[in-house]
């Protein structure tokens, strides 16, 4: 045989075999990363996968699994998981990564696989419970779902019928499905959405929103040449797993990593340049870098001229100067020339030459600069929103916006499929408890002020849902929350929807058990690279049973005990609020297929996947599956990649009808917007007043999409800020933080509390034994110099005094913290007064005398007997210290975000101090609330148009436009 011919034949045979196998949607070559330890079972064998049982070792016992995808619920990253469902017992044995998930790509952090410990937690809530004694007494009795639903629905119905819509509130911690509960509330006509965001990301998001109309960054780390993080993003930041893996891939390609972090975090250790900035000085350093780019001409003038709203800025702020780009460039130069490396060095404590070196690297990035700030400095400081604004200034200067290696706006990298029914309703009333006119520009609800607003403004909630949220423990000023929750005049009925016991649920009237990530439906999509994907969270046992041919009509039938999923819960509750449909509410959850009957989740998702996800029906058909079957099988779908710079897209002719372009270049059209399957929130922009809608901006004679901002461009100068009372803040600038060195009193230090250990999950770590074993304490980071001054060493007790009280914690002396700054991780210090989770909650005595509150620890955790033998092996006793209760509310007057950093005094603990002691005077809390309230500029005095809030700013559950009108006339003496 001719050897050449033979090899050619083999080549053809193997190519044909591969094509044949892959045409069936199967895997020809073994799993994706077989070369090393990781190995993903080929997807065609997910229905019957055989592994040896590790617990049976050394016996070789084979176990057969169904691998069912779902989405992690233990942070907002929404990484893909594969549940290993034992085919014999139909139990979930473990979770691993889902290689089909475009965001996480099969990789997970510790929190994903730990989901299995949440499912099997012996202290899990398995039955709906109703309070039997007084609130917080710890007495409960089981209650049926029907009774609970009828009671809650009855109260909501009465509130709606009696026009008390404001008394219904839903307060969310970990978000589930994009828009699901917002639509539910819209269907009810209730402006009752309340999120946790103002204690989380809203500071940074306000900064991004003001720049580009979209409020989240989507950095393309993978393709960047320079990555600049104002965060500890490689270990614990938002979307950290999907982003961290791409940061490392960027680094592997040769990208330089610059990290701003006061602490020597794990992220800082991976940096090429670590800048240990003094808390609150970040914007000064970023402006020094910006000044360097401007001064040396290393910025992308073409991009700036084309896409910044410099024309508006010049017209409004420098009317005497020529309205030319050259004149603007001179103004820009002068505006930032004071931000020298020396100035930034003095503010930050970072040597000027180090800042200069970082600036040089940024200057060399071209358009491949990816940047990210989520919480971190933006969540810690007064004016924190300017950190994101000054960070994005660097992208805007370089033109590193929505191009490969740059930073994209989230809405262009996010796909929210249009649901089967989209309530066109908007609440007719405005909820002043969540959107007070003192904070007209707050990005999100002023959630953490609720105890003070209900107390000082005669606020009452008749039905208050806390949903996978624990404000008593997570929010600042937790004792004020306890005062509110135990006051029946302020809270009529408190319903805690939670999978896990928590400090807030202890004070509820109903505790309704909700499912973990593998026990609920949600549809998710997040901006994690330049692409669009959807992830499907599903009850895996439901999907498994259906694969076996069973028909499952309710997720409750497959969850442990009487645990339920939320979507079915909300549908059922809505149906009971409007039992006969006369209120026009239940129609939004009525079946299309079976008019007059409730919609099922199968119909709901089946319709979405069939009609609202481009490409999915075709992809599914290639495998002989329906779109719903495809999603139940693979758990994720990538709708598209390489979205690119949407702002540069030409608006198609079909959308251009009777176009008018105003003096600022904004283009308006009479053509209706084309229908889009993607309903990702985008700011509504006003039309031209003559019936035309905003469609884009005219650039060199062509109408381009531009940005969803009032100017249609990147808003270097924010007319919104200027017109709503903050003209001095209208361009990216530096706000001296409330913990600036000059502000601190003698003996005070700055406490950083905005970081966490990457294995903690806010409230729900409480029943994840693996995670608890890894991390269960939060000592106070203390620089050796400060430790020597205070006279303590590692392990010694210290008392940390805040404005409203103090806590007692152990010291950890380390060079890894900036001198003059202390740091204490949140997500720690769980407590209970009686029965409750035993793995991670200390048992405490909760004492009150008037406004003086105290917590003292009776005992920590320890081993106990349960069905899970591991609980007898608990070797740790420490659970950390709950510091947040001692923090006053500190709302930023513009973004509304809580400014977490604290001015504290740290002293060696006294003889009476014991580990875990917490003491607070809530009268001082109220004083702090009033003190920060004085910083605000009330809409009644500063609104330019008589409304409460700029119409274009994003807002969940947007009320009707009339509700935006202020109830006060600013000229009236009674106006606030």
């Amino acid at each position: 045989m001719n050897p050449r011919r033979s090899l050619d034949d083999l080549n053809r045979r193997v190519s044909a075999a591969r094509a044949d196998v892959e045409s069936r949607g199967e895997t020809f070559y073994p799993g994706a990363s077989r070369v090393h330890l990781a190995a993903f079972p080929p997807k065609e064998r997910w229905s019957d996968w055989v592994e040896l049982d590790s617990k049976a070792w050394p016996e070789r016992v084979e176990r057969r699994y169904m691998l069912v995808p779902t989405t992690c619920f233990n942070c907002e990253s929404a990484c893909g998981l594969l549940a290993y469902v034992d085919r014999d017992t139909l139990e979930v044995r473990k979770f691993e990564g889902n290689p089909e998930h475009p965001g996480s790509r099969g990789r997970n952090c510790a929190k994903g696989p730990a989901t299995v410990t949440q499912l099997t937690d012996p202290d899990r809530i398995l039955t709906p419970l109703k309070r039997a004694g007084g609130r917080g007494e710890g007495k409960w009795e089981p209650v049926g779902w029907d009774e609970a639903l009828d009671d809650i629905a009855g109260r909501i119905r009465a509130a709606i019928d009696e026009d008390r819509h404001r008394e219904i509130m839903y307060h969310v911690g970990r978000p589930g499905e994009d828009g699901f509960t917002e639509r539910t509330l819209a269907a009810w006509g209730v402006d009752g959405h309340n999120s946790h965001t103002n204690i989380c990301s809203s500071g940074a998001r306000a900064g991004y929103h003001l720049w580009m109309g979209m409020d989240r960054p989507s950095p393309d780390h993978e393709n960047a040449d320079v990555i600049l993080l104002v965060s500890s993003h490689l270990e614990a930041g938002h979307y950290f797993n999907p982003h961290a893996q791409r940061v490392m891939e960027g680094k592997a390609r040769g990208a330089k990593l610059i990290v701003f972090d006061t602490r020597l975090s794990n992220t800082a250790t991976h940096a090429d340049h670590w800048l240990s900035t003094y808390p609150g000085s970040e914007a000064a350093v970023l402006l020094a870098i910006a000044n360097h780019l401007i001064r040396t001409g290393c910025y992308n003038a073409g991009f700036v001229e084309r896409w910044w709203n410099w024309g508006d800025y010049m017209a409004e702020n420098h009317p005497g100067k020529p309205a030319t780009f050259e004149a603007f460039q001179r103004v820009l130069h002068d505006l930032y020339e004071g931000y020298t490396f020396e100035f930034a060095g003095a503010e930050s404590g970072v040597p000027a030459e180090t800042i200069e070196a970082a600036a040089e690297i940024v200057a060399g990035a071209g358009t491949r600069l990816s940047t990210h700030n989520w919480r971190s400095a933006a969540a810690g400081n007064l004016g924190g929103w300017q950190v994101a604004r000054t960070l994005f200034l660097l992208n805007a200067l370089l033109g590193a916006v929505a191009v490969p290696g740059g930073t994209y706006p989230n809405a262009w990298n996010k796909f929210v499929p249009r649901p089967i029914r989209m309530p066109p309703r908007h609440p007719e009333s405005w909820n002043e408890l969540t959107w007070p006119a003192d904070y007209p520009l707050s990005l999100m609800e002023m959630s953490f002020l609720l105890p003070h607003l209900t107390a000082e403004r005669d606020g009452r909630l008749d039905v208050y849902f806390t949903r996978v949220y624990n404000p008593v423990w997570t929010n600042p000023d937790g004792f004020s929350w306890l005062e509110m929750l135990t006051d029946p005049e302020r809270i009529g009925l408190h319903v805690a929807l939670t999978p896990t016991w928590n400090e807030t649920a202890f004070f509820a009237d109903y505790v309704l058990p909700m499912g973990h990530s593998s026990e609920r439906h949600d549809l998710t999509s997040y901006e994690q690279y330049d692409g669009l994907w959807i992830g499907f969270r599903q009850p895996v046992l439901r999907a498994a049973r259906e694969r076996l041919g069973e028909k499952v009509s309710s997720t409750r039938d497959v969850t442990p005990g009487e645990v339920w999923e939320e979507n079915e819960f909300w549908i059922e509750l809505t149906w009971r609020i409007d039992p006969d449909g006369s209120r026009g509410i239940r129609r939004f959850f009525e079946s299309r297929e079976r008019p007059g009957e409730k919609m099922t989740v199968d119909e709901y998702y089946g319709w979405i996947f069939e009609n609202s996800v481009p490409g999915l029906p075709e992809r599914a058909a290639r495998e002989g599956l329906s779109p719903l079957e495809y999603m139940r099988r693979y758990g994720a779908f990538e709708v598209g990649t390489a979205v690119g710079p949407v702002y540069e897209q030409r608006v198609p002719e079909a959308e251009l009808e009777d176009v008018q372009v105003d003096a600022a270049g904004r283009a308006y059209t009479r053509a209706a917007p084309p229908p889009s399957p993607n309903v990702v929130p985008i700011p509504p922009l006003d039309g031209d007043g003559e019936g035309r809608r905003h469609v884009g901006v005219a650039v060199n004679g062509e109408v381009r999409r531009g940005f969803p901002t009032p100017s249609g461009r990147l808003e270097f100068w924010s007319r919104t800020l200027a017109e709503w009372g903050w003209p001095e803040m209208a361009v990216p600038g530096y706000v001296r933080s409330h913990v600036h060195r000059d502000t601190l009193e003698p003996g005070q230090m700055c406490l950083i509390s905005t970081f966490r250990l990457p294995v903690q999950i806010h409230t729900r770590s409480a029943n994840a034994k693996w995670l608890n074993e890894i991390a269960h304490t939060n000592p106070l980071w203390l620089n050796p110099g400060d430790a020597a001054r205070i006279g303590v060493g590692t392990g010694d007790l210290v008392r940390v005094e805040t404005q409203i009280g103090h806590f007692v914690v152990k010291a950890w002396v380390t060079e890894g913290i900036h001198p003059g700054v202390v740091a204490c991780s949140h997500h720690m210090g769980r407590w209970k007064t009686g029965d409750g989770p035993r793995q991670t909650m200390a048992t405490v005595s909760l004492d009150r005398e008037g406004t003086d509150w105290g917590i003292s620890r009776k005992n920590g955790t320890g081993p106990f007997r349960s069905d899970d033998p591991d609980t007898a092996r608990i070797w740790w006793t420490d659970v950390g210290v709950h510091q947040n209760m001692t923090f006053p509310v500190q709302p930023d007057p513009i973004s509304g975000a809580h400014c977490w950093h604290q001015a504290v005094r740290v002293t060696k603990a006294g003889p009476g101090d014991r580990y875990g002691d917490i003491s607070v005077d809530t009268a001082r809390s109220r004083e702090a609330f009033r003190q920060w309230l004085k910083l605000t500029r009330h809409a009644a005095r500063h609104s330019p148009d008589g409304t409460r809030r700029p119409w274009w700013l994003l807002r969940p559950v947007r009320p009707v436009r009339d509700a935006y009108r202020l109830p006060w006339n600013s000229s009236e003496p009674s106006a606030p």
Partner: protein
Amino acid sequence: MELFRALGSLIEVPAPEHRRIAEALGLPSVPDPSVHGAVVASQRYPYASVYLGAEGMMGGEARDRIAGFRRALGIGDGQAGGGPGDAAVTGDDPGPGRSAGVAESDHLAALLALLCALDRWQRDESDPARAALMAEARVTLVWEHIVSWTGPYLASFERCGSPFHEAWAALLSEALARLEAETPFPDYLPAAFRTAPALADPRDEGGAAFLATLLAPVRSGVILLRDDLVRLGEEAGLACRAGERRYVLGSFLAQDPGAALQWLAGHAREWSGRMVGRGPAPVARWWADRAAESAVLLSRLADGAGTVVSAVSVP
């Protein structure tokens, strides 16, 4: 080129998918994973760095060279860990300039998959200059990182006792020979050869260095499998102690240095002879010469065995 990717995948841990790949290639039945463990995982490590690195271990400068090569192509260097983005392994390579990290870039499967990918990129490239760069990169990959070590590596599968692996090695050798014939190689030796010193003389560098370099193919010119050491024990009448190869070798030298060194010298001579015709002529000649040099040193050491044993750190 798909043939190379297919052959590369077959040196990974056996999975059910391998059955149809082997069938397409006309190879014997894919063996049980335990056979793979005995033949490949614990003896014939499919990593270039083991054969081209001066330490004879996975990683180090030899793997860094490949990682740097990948970086220069604008693809992942393999240091960030594996995953579904492991395009060079899956065949779903996104193209140059896009990251595609592979868990261990010097694994034979990854190298052969990259070869396949480079071939496709070159064919798909519309810019003639970039296509020429791709062609150049392909030559470099084959010369520096594949045929520089596959000669001795594939030779080690002869008479390994697994029909599948013997046939696989023979087929890959044949395919590589065809590739070599079609590839215009440079007139200089691969970098690994140019920088690797010869086998350490224990009289000068001590016993530890001697044992370490004896187990580093690029230093000794020889591959010493665990099976070879068992044979050494049987043929030289020495007790083969259980442990890592360095420990076993040290034990042999402690028991009877003369006999052990004589056997090793013979093994090196035999190995030198086996290298003839294995790969491109300059490469085959280099391996044969390196093994022959080692044989000479080992023979000399056997003659003066007393001085050697004192130099070797006896476990």
